[in-house]
């Protein structure tokens, strides 16, 4: 099992450019999440998905879009990158079966470090 993988690991963008971050999981998890991590801010939820074809906004969704066309993949898009989007982005996934607490047990990818100049 590879678990949760993220592509790319690093990226540098110029202001106004667009890009897509890819998250893939091979654990057959229903729920998937995108976070950003900034110094002193902890992790903040951008968007999440409770199943294929469904997405929802988290705490800081502005400037980002997501898609979940396949159960195992969750894409995060930046249409017009801004320096404020310089951050480390983490994807996570969790199960929905078993005890009710299991859906909160999230497994994280290694992260993508994005710099917008």
């Amino acid at each position, binding site marked *: 099992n590879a678990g949760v993988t993220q592509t790319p690991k690093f990226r540098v963008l110029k202001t106004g450019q667009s890009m897509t971050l890819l998250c893939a999981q091979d654990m057959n998890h229903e729920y998937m999440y995108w976070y950003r991590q900034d110094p002193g801010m902890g*992790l903040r939820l951008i968007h999440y998905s409770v199943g294929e074809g469904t997405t929802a906004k988290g705490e800081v969704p502005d400037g980002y879009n997501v898609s979940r066309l396949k159960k195992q993949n969750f894409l995060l898009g930046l249409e017009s990158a801004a320096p404020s989007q310089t951050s480390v982005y983490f994807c*996570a996934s969790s199960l929905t079966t078993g005890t009710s607490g299991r*859906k*909160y047990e*999230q497994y994280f990818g290694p992260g993508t470090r994005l710099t917008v100049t």
Partner: protein
Amino acid sequence: AQSVTQPDIHITVSEGASLELRCNYSYGATPYLFWYVQSPGQGLQLLLKYFSGDTLVQGIKGFEAEFKRSQSSFNLRKPSVHWSDAAEYFCAVGAFGGSQGNLIFGKGTKLSVKP
């Protein structure tokens, strides 16, 4: 609204010393609680979790945590710290309401280990 507080931003301990990282949460009912560890340049790894039952839970790497309802706390402990434990530690609580599995994270405590 639910929240998680980690009062200590940075803690330094000597190798071999004991460790306690504090976590307080605000939530009316019994929460689902987690501790994650993040080594430099890495993703978050689940250390341990509390769902119900025994209030002292054991995790990986020799860590344990105790749920104290009366104090709304879920402090992480280790009896003897190793240099490889230097990392950032995050406490999290499952967000109540809705069917999704959203977590609310504390802002983290960075642990440094002195030789």
